[in-house]
């Protein structure tokens, strides 16, 4: 990613830094040089940077996986997909037998009923696994759970439960499916088990192992951790100080629990500045503030401009939700901006993006500041005009390229319709308008995997195999830049990582084949050997 030296055959490393990039002969006269040939037949890239993910991404692997697709867990164990209700039950029966405590709740995750043949999985099926132990199966969508009769009994769920989302059969008896969080929260033991796992210190490790397995050397936990709360910083420090911890983490400061008043935001900004100035270490970085402005497009909660949604569910109010009153945004952005922080704002819809861009514009007019790198996160419907303005203001973008594969078909037919869907996650438009951008997985919303995300941006193939908006495809080199140097730029780390240059950290992604050589459709199938972080190799799939 160093334009003056795009390719090389050897790299010299001293300590955790790169001391030279060139050919083997260039370094042989370096004093006390040791030649390391272990990656002789592999491809070294600047370490991949996942600039938008969440630490709980790997935590669900603490529980058995019952999803449709085959997946590997952070330790490298391959879990075969459950192709029908029977194989889901078989896996659960096996887990039930392995559990020592007969009263302990069995939690599983990843169920995706649309893919399963035959009857929908309900409580009576789960009762075949156990009628004594509560069972809670969390769906892949994160919006639903299916529980057994014992879980309903213990949670007081019956035909009289008035909570919306408790699905009932024709005779009015709950069938075990709990839709949306209010209903899921009735089965509080199941949901709490998942939440506790997500915030545990093991989760920080599974997140890092998962990142390592897909070649990521730096990941941003974008506003998941409550840094202002006691113990959270220490937990991150403990993990990242361990020499075996395989990634660098940028922990964004979430704008949480704030009432939006200027004094309150200034107080929060002060905390965030303190972290950046006094608490950074080799593998733990700060300086980013995360704000969430709207919802999601597939959930019909993103704020999108006229004509809004194509085919929303019955009772939908017409447009999405604000998570912050738009009129508070100028004050919020301005306070963090004046404190010298970089604001990353979640804007799935274009209406949300406009409110954020306007707030940055206003902040810059009263307090001009060079190189602020304020970033629109997700950018799914960001328009050409908006990219023009972002370029003018010096803003960055982080585009949710994975959506094209995972929800592209639904966007074309249900959420926004083909014409708009073809322009969604428009990397080529961002490139044309000169906006520096990254691309991301938002793990656990979609699985982490930079090669898959690159494949999405380059091919724009949907799950059904259609090319959605061919004009928005970008080249392999641009996609690699987006996952390395330009991702590092928006995380304020481009002076240290993102390219292979003398003086930068020795962070590499080690691949079995060259992304510049393979067919574009094959990008996602490139094997990842692992990574090197600060000169230390970490092999994918190892413990």
């Amino acid at each position, binding site marked *: 990613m160093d334009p003056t030296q795009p390719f090389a055959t050897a790299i010299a490393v001293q300590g955790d830094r790169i001391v030279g990039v060139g050919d083997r002969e260039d370094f042989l006269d370096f004093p006390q040089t040791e030649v390391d040939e272990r990656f002789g037949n592999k491809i070294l890239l600047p370490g991949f940077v996942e600039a938008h993910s*969440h630490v*709980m991404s790997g935590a669900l692997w603490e529980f058995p996986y019952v999803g449709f697709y085959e997946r590997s867990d952070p330790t490298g164990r391959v879990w075969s997909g459950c192709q029908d209700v029977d194989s889901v039950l078989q896996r659960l029966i096996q887990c039930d037998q392995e559990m020592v405590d007969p009263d302990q709740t069995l939690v599983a995750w990843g169920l995706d009923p649309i893919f399963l043949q035959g009857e929908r999985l309900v409580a009576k099926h789960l009762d075949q696994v156990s009628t004594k132990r509560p069972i809670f199966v969390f769906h892949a*969508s*994160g*919006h639903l759970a299916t529980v057994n009769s014992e879980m309903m009994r213990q*949670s*007081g769920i019956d035909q*009289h*439960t*008035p*909570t919306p*989302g408790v699905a009932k059969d024709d005779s009015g008896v709950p069938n075990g499916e709990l839709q*949306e*969080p*209010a*209903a899921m*929260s*009735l089965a*509080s*033991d199941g*949901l*709490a088990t998942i*939440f506790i796992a*997500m*915030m545990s210190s093991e989760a920080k490790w599974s997140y890092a192992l998962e990142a390592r397995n897909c070649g990521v050397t730096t990941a941003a936990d974008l*506003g998941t951790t*409550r840094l202002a*709360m*006691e113990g959270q910083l220490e937990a991150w420090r403990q993990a990242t100080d361990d020499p075996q911890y395989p990634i660098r983490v940028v922990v964004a400061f*979430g*704008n*949480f*629990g*704030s*009432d*939006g008043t200027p004094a309150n935001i200034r107080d929060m900004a002060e905390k965030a500045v303190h972290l950046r100035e006094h608490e950074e270490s080799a593998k733990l970085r700060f300086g980013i503030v995360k704000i*969430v402005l709207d*919802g*999601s497009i597939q*959930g019909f*909660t993103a*704020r999108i401009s006229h004509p809004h949604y194509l085919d929303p569910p019955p009772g939908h*109010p*017409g447009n999405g*939700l*604000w*998570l*912050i*009153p*738009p*009129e*508070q945004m100028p004050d919020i952005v301005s306070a963090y901006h004046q404190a010298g922080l970089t604001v990353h704002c*979640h804007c*799935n819809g274009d*209406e949300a993006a406009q*409110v954020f861009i306007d707030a940055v514009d206003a902040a810059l007019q009263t307090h001009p500041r060079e190189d602020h790198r304020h970033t629109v996160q*997700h950018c799914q419907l960001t328009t050409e005009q908006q990219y023009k303005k972002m370029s003018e203001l010096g803003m960055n973008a982080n585009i949710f390229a994975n959506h094209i594969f995972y929800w592209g078909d639904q966007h074309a037919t249900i959420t926004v319709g083909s014409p708009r869907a073809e322009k969604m996650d428009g990397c080529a438009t961002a490139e044309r308008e000169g906006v520096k951008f990254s691309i991301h997985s*938002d793990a*656990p*919303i979609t699985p982490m995997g930079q090669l898959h995300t690159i494949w999405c941006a380059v091919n724009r193939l949907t799950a059904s195999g259609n090319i959605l908006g061919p004009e928005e495809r970008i080249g392999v080199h641009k996609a690699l830049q987006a996952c390395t140097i330009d991702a590092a730029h928006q995380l304020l780390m481009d002076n240290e990582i993102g390219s292979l240059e003398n003086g930068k950290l020795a962070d590499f992604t080690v691949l079995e084949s060259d992304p510049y050589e393979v067919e574009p459709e094959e990008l996602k199938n490139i094997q990842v050997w692992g990574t090197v972080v600060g000169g230390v190799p970490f092999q994918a799939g190892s413990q």
Partner: protein
Amino acid sequence: MGHSSGRRSLSSGITVTKLVDLYDSPMEVTVIGGYLGAGKTTLVNHLLSQATEVIAVLINDFGEINIDDKLVDSADENTITLTNGCICCSLADGYSKALDDVAKRNPRPTRLVIEASGVADPAAVAAYGHAPGMALNAVAVVADSVNLIQQLADPLVGQTVRSQLAAADVILLNKTDLAPETETVRTELDRFNSDALLVECVHSRIDLDLLFGSEVSKVPKASEAVGEYESRCHRSNQPIPRDALVELIERLPEQVQRAKGIVRVAEEPQIPMVFQLVGRRWELRALADRKNAPEGNQLVVIGPKGTVPLDWDRTLKVED
């Protein structure tokens, strides 16, 4: 109630308390919604200062729940947000922790008031009011009578404000002292929520009986009128046929906009049912907590002074 300034956050307690195991009767939940600046916090303060019972207040800012530390001492926080997948997951998580905190309070609160954020849909928050051990009392939405018309027409927030008001059982048309007239606003409100109980007020001051509904035990036997409103109650033992109940409700004087109670319906006498009337909307649904429900029937109706006839429940008396 302990006092200190500002808000604090939730405990990260791992145990999940089941309110149903702790309380003798369901804890009533009132959700307060309304757009930024309408007067929600003023309303919460009013409720806290006027209430004769212990109220726990949950504050739901930015899609998550904080707990008012006037009522809760615990300090750490460990809630999470799954923002892109779902904005209400944090609510689900925070909620169980908040309830855990509420249950640990001494004296134990008997009523929960949830102040939704200025952009939240109060209906989504209200969905949490049906957990075992709880009974949803009402969704109250505060509206700024000076700025409401303008807010409704705003291209960015108009729909947010409209959805909030549409979800209301009670609308507090607030700041009427600053509005030249309220007729235009009332007409506008009528277009998308003609059923809610509409109360005009200043500084969010609403009669607590009107918002919460009186407790049968607190209504004086002689049914004397106190303040602007009067409450009358009915107590009986025999299950009431559903038709008789419906008839009673339909015959209530128009001015009676609030009634509540727990009744046994003749068709299913073993199930205690919660009865609620707010504005022109009423519902009858099973009480989640059956173990501890009071015996027989207890109903209270509330109306402006002089509007509730002494024999308002005569159709029920015949049955008893």
